[in-house]
Structures are given as C-alpha cells and as structure tokens.
C-alpha cells in the first residue's frame, strides 16, 4: 500500500494537495459554463450559429429603431420595451426551444448526469443551477435589445426617468416570463431526450398554444365574452406576459386584458408554473440519475 503523501511515485502519479472549491463555487462554475453553452460558447463552432443568428435577428430591429429615433428626433420610442419582447416573442421562443435541450437533454441522453451527481453538488442544486443558466440566457437574449433601445433613447435625449421606469417595468415582466419559459422548455427537454422532439414540444408550448390563445381572445372580444378571453390567457407564458404588461400599463395591448382579481390570478399562475416545472425538473434529474 503506497502511503498517501505528496511523494512523486516512480510511475509519475502525482497527488493533488491543493485547494478544493466548496459547493457554492462549484455551482457558480456550472452556472457560468451552462450560460456559455446556451450561446454555443465553449462548444463547437456549429453550435454558435443558431443562438447568435437568433440573437442578431432579435436585436437588429432595436438598432434600426434607435437609428431612426436619432435621425428624425422623435420625442418617444416608436415601440415600447415590453411590447418589443411581445413583437419578438417568436424569436425568443425559438431560442428557448433550441437551446433548452443543450442544458437539459444532453446530460440525460448521454447519461453524464450520473457523473455530475456522483460529485459534490447535490442533485437539486445541480438542477436549479441548470435552470438558472437557462433563465439567465433567456434574460440576456431578451434584455440585450431593450438595452440597445434604452441607450439609444437616452442618446436621442428622451426623458431619463420616463425611459427608466418603462425599462424597469419590462425587466420585471421579463424576470417572471423567462422563469416560466425556462421551466417549461427545461422540463420538456428533460423528458423528451431526442432533441427534435424536445424542440417540437417547446414550440407547441411557446408558439402554437399562444397563437391559439390569441385567436380565442380575439373571438371572445368580438363576441363580447371577455372573461373567456381573459381565462384563456392563463394557458400560455406569452399571454400571461402580454396580459400582465397590459394590466400594468407597460405599453402592450391585448384583446382581453385581465383586471382586478384576474391580475392576481395571472401572477399566481406564472409563479406556480415556474415553481412546479422547476420542482419537476429536480425530480426528473434525480430519478434518471438513480437508474
């Protein structure tokens, strides 16, 4: 039995006596790696194409708007912060659908999850860290164009406090919405491990269902059955986002805006969906790892 000392053995095996990070630092490393991977950074060149293409498409209109505002000296932005997200929600949805599997299918499909969970990070911390990476990636993706708008607005000499208030409202809404979207797409990706199925599933949840909800709301408004439209708004993350933005006067209008108790219901459903999907994610990872 060789002694456990720092001695260099004949065969050249060296012991490691240096420092070892605690759980919080390991979680931070995992978080940063996950955030980078969501944009294809630190992965193959091919993996960077789609996220950056979508990010470019999503930010380009903001840059154009800024150019126009500066050139012709408008006294307000032609598009609000919150409604910018609503206008680009298809791109955000595609980004979430395509990149959630990077963080939630890969480890499970290739079973490297077992290697993670045989390491110090407890399974719930691992799952929550992954979810936080995805949420942050979505925030970066949605906030970048808003920051472009904001900086442009200030450069064009628009009122600082008006702009800041509007931006902060949009950010608060995004904090809630990205949480929900990350929970939904993460859970779908962790259940259907084939990337194609995961993407299709997420697109149904983020594009098809919201489309149907909007149609229902339009019909409900036309038929004078507003409550039906408001209730339908609970069924998708984007209708929750727009509905709350409308109720909060954040520069978005929907066919059937929620009011009174409905606003609370919208908020409650958003928080609940975020919490439930995240908890389900944790359970899912732990179950797969024990097999």
């Amino acid at each position, binding site marked *: 039995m060789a002694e456990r000392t720092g001695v260099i*053995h004949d*065969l050249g*095996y060296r012991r490691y006596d240096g420092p070892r990070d605690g759980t919080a630092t390991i979680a931070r490393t995992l978080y940063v790696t996950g955030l980078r991977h969501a944009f294809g950074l630190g992965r193959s060149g091919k993996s960077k194409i789609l996220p950056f293409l979508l990010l470019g498409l999503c930010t380009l209109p903001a840059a154009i708007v800024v150019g126009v505002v500066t050139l012709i000296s408008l006294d307000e932005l032609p598009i609000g912060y919150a409604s910018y997200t609503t206008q680009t929600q298809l791109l955000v949805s595609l980004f979430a659908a395509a990149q959630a599997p990077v963080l939630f299918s890969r480890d499970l499909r*290739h*079973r490297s999850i077992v290697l993670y969970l045989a390491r110090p990070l407890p399974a719930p911390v691992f799952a929550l860290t992954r979810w936080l990476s995805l949420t942050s990636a979505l925030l970066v993706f949605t906030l970048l164009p808003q920051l472009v708008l904001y900086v442009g607005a200030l450069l064009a000499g628009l009122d600082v406090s008006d702009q800041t208030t509007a931006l902060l409202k949009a950010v608060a809404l995004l904090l809630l919405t990205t949480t929900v979207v990350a929970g939904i797409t993460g859970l779908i990706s962790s259940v259907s491990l084939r990337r194609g199925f995961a993407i299709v599933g997420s697109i149904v949840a983020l594009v098809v269902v919201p489309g149907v909800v909007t149609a229902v709301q339009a019909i409900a408004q036309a038929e004078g059955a507003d409550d039906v439209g408001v209730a339908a708004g609970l069924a998708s993350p984007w209708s929750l986002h727009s509905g709350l933005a409308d109720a909060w006067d954040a520069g978005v209008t929907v066919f059937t805006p929620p009011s009174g108790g409905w606003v609370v219901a919208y908020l409650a459903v958003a928080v609940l969906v975020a919490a439930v999907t995240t908890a389900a994610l944790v359970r899912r990872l732990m179950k797969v790892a024990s097999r």
Partner: protein
Amino acid sequence: MTEDGEQVIATTGLTKHYGQVHALTDLDIEVGPGVTGLVGANGAGKSTLIKILLGLLEPTSGRASVLGHDIATAGEEIRRVVGYMPEHDCLPPDVSASDFVVHMARMSGLGASAARERSADVLRHVGLDEERYRPMGGFSTGMKQRAKLAQALVHDPRLVFLDEPTNGLDPAARTDMLRLVRRIGADFGIAVLVTSHLLGELEQVSDHVVVLDAGHLLRSSATGDFLEQTGSLLVEVVGGTTERDRFGEALAAAGLPCRPRGTAVVIDPAPQLPVHDLVRDTAADLGLGLMRLQPDRHHLEDVFLQGPASAQQEVARG
C-alpha cells in the same frame, strides 16, 4: 497489505428492495485499503451497492459508511473524496476527452488551472495521450473506458468505484485495464472497489475479494485465501480424454487417490507415497508425455461450487 486498520467501506444490514426485487439483503461488508474485488453474476447487486454508497440511491434499510462518513448524512463529503466509473456509457460524444475531464475536475472542486494540469496527467496515466483532443464519440470501447476512468481519478480521490471496467473489452484491452486497476491501488495509493461478473478475472489484481450472490454476501476474504493451495496435485498428459483416463487408471492402480477434472487429473494428497516419482514413472511406462504438473489451487469459481454453507464460516473475516 490490507491490514493497517483503516476502514474504507463498512455496511451493516444494508438492504435494497426495488418493489418485489430484493437487490441487496442484509449486507454486512468491510472493505480496507488496496484493491477490493466485488464479484457476482449479473443482477447480484454490485451496481446497486455502489450507487447506495455514492448516495445516488437510498437503501431500504441498514447503514453504511465510506471513508468514515455516514452515507445517510454526509453524502456530499463522500462524493468529494470518491471517484466513480459507471458501468454504462456516460460520455457526451461531441466533446473531447480533454475538455470533458477538465470540466469534471472542476465539478469536483478543482480550480481552472489545477483541473487542466491534472486532466493532462491523468489522461496520460490511463493511456489517452494522443487521442485526448478528439471528440469521444469516435472512441473505441477501450478508449471510452479509459476516458471514464480518467474522470474518476482526475480529482485525486481517496477511493474509486470501478463498475465493470473490463466490460466489452477484448482480451488485450482487458489485461491493460486490469493492470491499470492494480496500479491505481498499488502505486497511486487510491483504494479501489472494482466489480466484475467474471468470477476469475479479479484474482490477480485484488487484495481482497467480496462475493455477492443474488444480493447476499457469499464470502469476503483476502484473495490469498481463495487461492491457497489445496495440497492436491494437478497433472495433465498429452492427448485427449482417452489418454487422460488411461493415465488416471494407472495412477489409481499405483495407489494414488485421483479423479479427472477437465483435461487434467487431480491427485489428492497421499503423504506416504513418493507422488512425483510415481507420476513420472507411470507416464513413462504408458509412453505418455507429461504436459503439466502443478499444485492445485482454489479459484473464485470454487466458492460457488462450495456454496453458501461453507462460505458462512469465512464471512466473519471481513
């Protein structure tokens, strides 16, 4: 070698049921430093035991400790100082061995530069020097096993669990892997718990062998005890069963108690007789060429032939 008192793994009454399946039943095991072979047929409960010790699975009942830490309360501490090479595939195909092992080192708490340094070291030790920058999807089974082993060693654990490291390897790669296992225990100074469903495979590399049978402990003892000489002699002559039988009958006629085993003849101890001389003369008289003449040893397989009854006496050894 295994008797310096340090206890690496200890279980008491460890039991795991998957619904109706009793994967482990009331298991009491002690494992010391060095290489310990955990042997048993498929489904014996080897992987289940390892997953429980790592905290990936909860036992139905019973207790266990790893390196002095209780699995029920100190899973995180255990996983900090333990390495794990799973039985099944666990490598992402589109990542290079080097990137992957570095990342896994960081997940064990090594800083960025230490992780890089140790990955390069460990990949060299497992023999993945040239291939380490290639995506692992293109690796052969042998190379994948080495990459799996590298990630288990990269944080310099005090104990590694190697679950069927030779599975799927051809004979040459199998020998290499077993030699590596031996080096980890003997030269790296890392305690090893290594499993195999092939009973004879771990004889050469283990200091100690634990045998599981359908979730029960069949036997646990130092490898030397399994291989101790029986006092019998194993002889083989050139030819087939006809020659073997002619030879055996002649030996019996000369007064030696013997019986056939495979292509050989086993001669039981006969202290009053000049056994070697009789064997040589009998073969010469019959005109048969002597191919093999050696002391007979127990093998791990014999444990199963002996069955649980006689194994019970050995269990207490720990």
